[in-house]
């Protein structure tokens, strides 16, 4: 078979202040017509750089040092920008990682897709361009193309935007589609739908697709072949089944086995630490619209328990966490911490010290939740200073060092500022900060979502260790179901502000009762390439579930929101 794209010994280097830095080294790849090649690797390994070099959209500081790119029989390595323009779209097209920034915020979606259509077929009358755009929007399974046509990117959801970006890449009928992390940063259910869509489109149009992802589970169901990248090199390359069955390179092994394994979850005592009763919180947008972010939610967390909260973005998880931490004052309901009603002003005031030190929160985005002008030592010691806790180990500095050691960082980090740290290191500092006052309850609001798989595993292990050693209780908020499955004792599923199901984790995954829970669980990517989870995943596209009903206990500890038939 003819190769559609061939990359021979490609090396790319970037000019930095510290001299040349190699980002791609000696890359060799082939793409055949009608196949899906997956490129996987941790973030920063050069996957996106590879795509950009193929498209010749590298930043100005990056140069192709050696090697060649042969597309459709032509060596395009030395092509001028003008010559590349005619190839982009016609032969190669690409979708970029973040669909919000990849679209021009000031132009309507229809206009932007229309541009791609008219570039491909110059002189096409406006009415026909519009028709074609609508057709494209329909082909990416957007059910109301006429409406979406006139909308701006910011008013579309992440999944819809990703569909529009794919439609744009399809507009010019390219032979090769480079899809850079098309499903990242989306909710699991949406992610599954986008993958289904890509698979369908690839089959229908017989396109060659280069699918870039950091998540092996995403590519397992689609890709024919997989290339694994590490530090700018391709370390393993082969048929998907073989690679997943017998990974040879240590990098591949760690990618495939990134989930921490601890089969044994220790027992928990029965004492209730936190109790949330009928909590409701509204956001008032203006006089006419009120959004009910949390709607009548009740649950309790026992001492030493890791309680998981899952649900799609916007379902009210973070709002709930903030209510628990007294950041928002709930509209109705009660939150009892060790029997103290934290929403009650008088109760709060008389128990201020215990409420402020024994409950701590870790925010989702570690870079914005740490003050950039403070040093790590001060960040960690600040809560102790504020709460007037005298350092047990002599000085606040020693205390900060101890906490850093605890989260696996050495004392060199004490004098650094957050900007000098990587995402994983920052999140550890955020955790160390929360731990410094020795809390009993930690609320972790998506602490892992901005981190790489390997770092995620480290942090999860850290959480588990903290729980075992120190008996912390956690409210662990995540949209990543597999993490919840591994880490938590019990989990609640939230949907549109309601808690729709609550059960011990094993029970929840083996016997999900609410339709939303079932959809959620079936959308978790399976790393087994032989598994047909993507095909099995509910194709009906059911997007709304009933949120009315009564929260009933169906078996011991298993609650579900049951519809009431009248």
């Amino acid at each position, binding site marked *: 078979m003819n190769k559609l794209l061939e990359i021979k010994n490609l090396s790319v280097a970037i000019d930095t202040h510290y001299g040349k830095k190699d980002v791609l080294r000696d890359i060799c790849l082939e793409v055949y017509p009608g196949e899906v090649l997956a490129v996987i690797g941790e973030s920063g390994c050069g996957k996106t750089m590879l795509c*950009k070099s193929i*498209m010749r*959209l590298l930043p*100005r500081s990056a140069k192709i040092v050696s090697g060649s790119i042969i597309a459709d029989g032509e060596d395009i390595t030395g092509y001028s*920008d*003008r010559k590349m*323009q*005619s*190839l*982009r*779209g*016609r032969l*190669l*097209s*690409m*979708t*970029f*990682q*973040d669909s919000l*920034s*990849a*679209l*021009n*915020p*000031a*132009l309507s979606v229809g206009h*932007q897709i229309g*541009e*791609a259509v008219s*570039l*491909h077929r110059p002189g096409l009358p406006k009415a026909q361009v519009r028709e074609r755009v609508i057709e494209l929007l329909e082909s990416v399974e957007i059910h109301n193309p006429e409406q*979406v046509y006139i*909308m*701006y990117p*910011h*008013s*579309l*959801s992440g999944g*819809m935007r990703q569909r529009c*970006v794919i439609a*744009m*890449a399809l*507009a*010019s009928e390219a032979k090769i589609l480079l899809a850079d992390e098309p499903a990242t940063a989306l909710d699991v259910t949406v992610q599954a739908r986008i993958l289904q869509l890509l698979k369908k489109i690839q089959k229908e149009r017989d396109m060659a697709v280069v699918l870039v992802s950091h998540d092996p589970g995403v590519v397992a169901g689609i890709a024919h072949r997989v290339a694994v990248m590490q530090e700018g090199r391709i370390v393993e390359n082969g048929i998907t089944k073989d690679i997943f069955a017998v990974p040879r390179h240590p990098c591949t092994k760690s990618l495939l086995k990134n989930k921490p394994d601890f089969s044994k979850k220790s027992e928990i005592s029965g004492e209730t630490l936190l109790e949330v009763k009928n909590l409701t919180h509204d956001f008032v947008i203006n006089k*006419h*619209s009120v959004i009910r972010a949390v709607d009548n939610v009740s649950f309790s967390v026992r001492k030493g328990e890791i309680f998981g909260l899952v649900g799609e973005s916007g379902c009210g998880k973070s709002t709930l966490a903030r209510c628990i931490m007294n950041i928002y004052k709930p509209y109705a309901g009660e939150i009892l911490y060790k029997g103290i009603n934290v929403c009650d002003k008088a109760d709060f005031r008389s128990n201020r010290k215990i409420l402020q030190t024994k409950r701590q929160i870790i925010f989702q985005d570690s870079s914005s939740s740490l003050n950039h002008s403070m040093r790590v030592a001060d960040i960690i010691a600040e809560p102790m200073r504020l709460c007037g806790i005298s350092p047990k180990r002599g000085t606040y500095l020693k205390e900060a060092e101890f906490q850093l050691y605890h989260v696996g960082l050495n004392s060199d980090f004490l004098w650094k500022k957050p900007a000098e740290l990587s995402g994983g290191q920052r999140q550890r500092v955020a955790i160390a900060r929360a731990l410094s006052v020795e809390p009993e309850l930690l609320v972790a609001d998506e602490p892992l979502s901005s981190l790489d798989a390997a770092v995620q595993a480290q942090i999860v292990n850290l959480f588990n260790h903290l729980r075992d050693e120190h008996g912390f209780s956690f409210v662990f908020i995540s949209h990543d179901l597999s993490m919840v499955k591994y880490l938590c004792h019990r989990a609640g599923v939230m949907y549109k502000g309601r808690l729709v199901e609550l059960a011990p984790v094993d029970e929840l995954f083996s016997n999900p009762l609410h339709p939303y829970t079932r959809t959620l669980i079936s959308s978790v990517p399976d790393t087994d390439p032989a598994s047909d989870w993507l095909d099995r995943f509910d194709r009906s596209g059911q997007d709304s579930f009933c949120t009315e009903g009564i929260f009933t206990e169906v078996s011991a500890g298993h609650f579900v929101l049951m519809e009431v038939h009248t």
Partner: protein
Amino acid sequence: MKSAVVYAVKKLLIFFAGIFVLSIIVFVMSRIAPGDPLVSYYGDRAEKMSASEKAAARERLGLDSSVYIQYIRWVGNAARGNFGISYKYRQDVSEVISRRLGNTLMLGGISFALVFILALLLGWFCARFEDRLPDRILCKTGTFVSCIPEFWLSLVLIFVFAVTLGVLPGGGAYDPGHSGDALNRLRHLVLPVAVLVMSHFWYYAYPVRNMLLEQTHADYVLTAKAKGMSSGAVMLKHCIPNIIPSYISFMAVSVPHILSGTYIVEAVFSYPGLGTLAYESARYGDYNLLMVICLLTGTAVILSNMTGQAIMEKINPAISAQKRGENL
């Protein structure tokens, strides 16, 4: 529809409140500032007048009562469209100003339009050659030129073009007897406009450059290029339209900046505009004239700020869409 009316009424109220506060400040300040209004009314004769004569003159001009009473009287008259007479010109203030207003508007307007266009083009040029030689040269010279004081630049230009070369007039708005000659007026405008444009364009070209660079580094530019668009087309169809609204509102807010420039330039070129008039009236305590000029300038400043603000509120599709409540 109803909300549009409410919006307009709100803005109008803010505007009048602003003008009212401004008028009080200017009125009181002008009374506190040194300068004898009798000098501008009687000229040299004022110095020879006896104390009683001066008192009588003050009473005649209504300057004897307290500042508050004077202010209330002034507001009452102003509400009926009577802004009093200029002590120096012994004419109605409105008449004195209307003769000069056109000149200033001409000078300011032409300069503003030129700065507006030039800044956009140069900013574009710099962004196109980001960090390469043309951009670097222009950035350095732009900063240098914008640092030259206006009065000094004016003097140098007058020296070179009017005195040494003799190709352009060095002052005034027109040659005697040529007041209706458009070409003659334009020739007189060349040097003042040149000074204004040179000393102002970089203040605006540099932000344009940076706004454009912010756009060209955005991911959507890559998307557009991946479609097969050329860099030039991306710039013209995506980047520039995206900055235009914020650029316009930015320029609207900077009207006062250029306006203050015209006042200095007018003084150096002895150009008969509001600037020279304002300077003289402040110096000699020509209160009525000063009030009106300050209020006119203030109106221009407030109006331009409000326009800029309104544009800002209107352009952001995220804000307007949120108001309409459409979200998927």
